[in-house]
């Protein structure tokens, strides 16, 4: 049996577990956005970053996404250090700056002590939430859960990602109504920010 230590708690486990799954067994909560246990992990949103080190060199810890990083024998993981919390705050500030109206993002930010009215915003938070250019309103955080669920569960490939960088979007192929869509609603179900709605066909 391999052994991993997360926030001081030890877990014996079989190979093949991610840090996130190991933490769950220890009832340690790590925030996630682009993760769904039924889909392949993505590692995109970066909100689940934790500090991980090997027992041999505990001082050489690195930030890794808990959802994709495999739990390794002898690994020491910290999920609530200042470094981790600072980094997660940066990520949620980026997402809140992108989707200021998303209820779910605002809630998660508030849990991390982040909001436009928080008194403890540093120079980065202040810029992202007050000075950064305003953009077209969206609640989509580009976590790709909808795209992945459509590929992996009904296997309809009715959604895909278009363009790159800041211009990235989720759309049906060629921005037309996808003929392959069966209206199963999986995409709307997994969307963490409730951005996708299902309409009855007229």
């Amino acid at each position, binding site marked *: 049996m391999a052994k991993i230590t997360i926030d001081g708690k030890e877990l014996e486990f079989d190979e093949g577990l991610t840090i996130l799954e190991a933490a769950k067994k220890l009832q340690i909560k790590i925030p996630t956005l682009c993760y769904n246990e039924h889909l392949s*992990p*993505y*590692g*995109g*949103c*970066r*909100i689940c*970053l934790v500090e991980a080190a090997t027992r041999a060199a505990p001082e050489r810890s690195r*930030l890794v*996404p808990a959802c*994709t*990083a*495999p739990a390794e024998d002898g690994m020491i993981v910290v999920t609530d250090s200042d470094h981790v919390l*600072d*980094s997660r705050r*940066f*990520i949620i500030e*980026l*997402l809140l*700056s*992108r989707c200021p109206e998303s209820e779910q993002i605002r809630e998660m930010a508030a849990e991390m002590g982040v909001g436009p009215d928080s008194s403890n915003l*540093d*120079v*980065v938070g202040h*810029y*992202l939430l007050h*000075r*950064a*250019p305003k953009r077209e309103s969206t609640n989509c*955080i*580009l976590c*790709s859960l909808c795209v992945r669920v459509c590929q992996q569960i009904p296997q309809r490939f009715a959604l*895909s*990602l278009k*363009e*790159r*960088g*800041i*211009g*990235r979007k989720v759309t049906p192929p060629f921005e037309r109504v996808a003929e392959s869509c069966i209206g199963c609603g999986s995409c709307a179900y997994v969307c963490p920010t409730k951005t996708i709605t299902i309409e009855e066909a007229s």
Partner: protein
Amino acid sequence: MGNFRFNLLVCAGTGCVSNNSFKVKAALEREIEKHKLQEEIQVVTTGCNGFCANGPIVVVKPDDIFYQLLTEEQIPHLVEEHFLKGRPVEKLMYTPSKGGAPIPKMSDIPFFGKQQLIALANRGLIDPENIDEYIALGGYQALSKALTEMTPEQVIEEIKASGLRGRGGAGFPTGKKWEFCRDASSAKAGSARDGGAGTSPSAQERTSGLALKYIICNADEGDPGAFMDRSIVESDPHALLEGMLIGAYAIGAGQGIIYIRGEYPLALERLNQALEQARDYGLLGEEILGSDFNFDISVSKGAGAFVCGEETSLIGSLEGKLPEPRVRPPYPAQSGYMGKPTNINNVETWANVPHIIKRGADWYSSIGTETSKGTKVFSLVGKVNNTGLVEVPMGITMREIVFDIGGGIPDGKKFKAVQTGGPSGGCIPESLLDTPVDYESLTQAGSIMGSGGMIVMDENNCMVEVARYFVSFTQEESCGKCSPCREGTWHMMNILDNITQGKGQEGDIELLEKIGKHIKETALCGLGNTAPNPVLTTIRYFRDEYEAHIRDKRCPAGVCKALITYSIDPQNCTGCTACAKNCPVECISGERKQTHVIDQQKCIKCGMCDSVCNFDAVRIE
């Protein structure tokens, strides 16, 4: 070189070709025929010499006479003087910019003198379109040695002992990478791996797409201004193929893929020619050189996404998926192309391999520094006299590259910085010019080795604008998968835009530093991990320029349009009217022989007046 009295080596790299080297070649052949010298003089095309700024280039062998900047019209004179009358033409030779006598011999020109060629060993020497010329200079001997005298394990040991590290940028030890891939088990690899040398799959497995392991050559060179890989493929494509053959043998791969930029038509053409020739000679395909080693290579064209230089994105692109990085582990060595163990190296890494196998790890590791062995190819561009492609031993200082090989800064301007490692490299200031070029020293200076871009900047470059330019490049090329790179680099670009437009605020420097540090730590792949480097290093070494933009609303280098004004100095203005005639918005007025005046309301700050003024009368403040 046969029985010819002279061999004329005409450079046919992309730089020279675009400067009409084929017309020069045709003119040479015409004149030689006119003088009935065709029995005595042979004209040959070669790959890139690297001295691209001075093309078209012709080197006369055996005397090694170097002619540059040739035009069709000069050829009759050149042929008559040099080849009929025996008088080499001095005015067509290289002359140092500081003045002095022309330098007739190629090897005496400082640009070439300090270089040490391994990856580019055959450049300018052989016709890249002719496999026989490669073989005549010892080509495919290393492959033969590996297949007949060495086990795959011995090949890997040799590469490990040589100290070769990945030339694509990250510098991972190549031998180790190969070993990971060799040791990785693919679903069906068990029995094949036990078979020792005969690890490559059967022809049937290969053609049916069941190859157990893949090797890939990353030739998706995306750094602006960099052309190392293109030049190697154009000048010596068989060196790449031989390196891949040896790697495939060592790793036990049955299929190779070269992923090359679609924008490299000449490289692509020569690569396909080379593959065809190698197949004809039995160097690719089945039972190579009479052994039981089977291997072939296919070519895939990249569609121009910078992120495809990142190996997992490249694999995604090859599979027909979106090019975006995947999380590692699993590493490509465990699960790469089509889920099979895959080894990726870039062009320059592969091109080093035949030399290491042929001449031995001891020889290779005697070149370079403690941790960085061998040589590195750089494309030296920007504000430097001799721009072009250079290959230098690791450990050489930046100063030697910029001032000895590069011949210093043009027009007597002052050196300001050199940026290494492409758009996500850092800018190194004059105080660190004696930094040796090796992976660790460059990282310590806040930059990276990268794949070998080297951009020289002088006093007329604004470092804030330089940082803005590179971040706008990386943010545009960010794939958008992870939040810090997608959102963070976009915010950095906006902040820098503001600063260069005079809208910076107190605290913006700290803001950029903090965002940059966060992105480096939290981004998914190498693109995001390094994208903030140009900003962080310019803040580290040129903080005063940022402060001038933010506090004094002033651009010290006179670059940022919103912060400068053009005016005409009455002391120097002679009233020649050149500026008024050339101003595209007609905002300069003044009678002939009277001082001219710029209408600041209409001026678009294009700099045309300054570039046409012969009397240094235009002031930029």
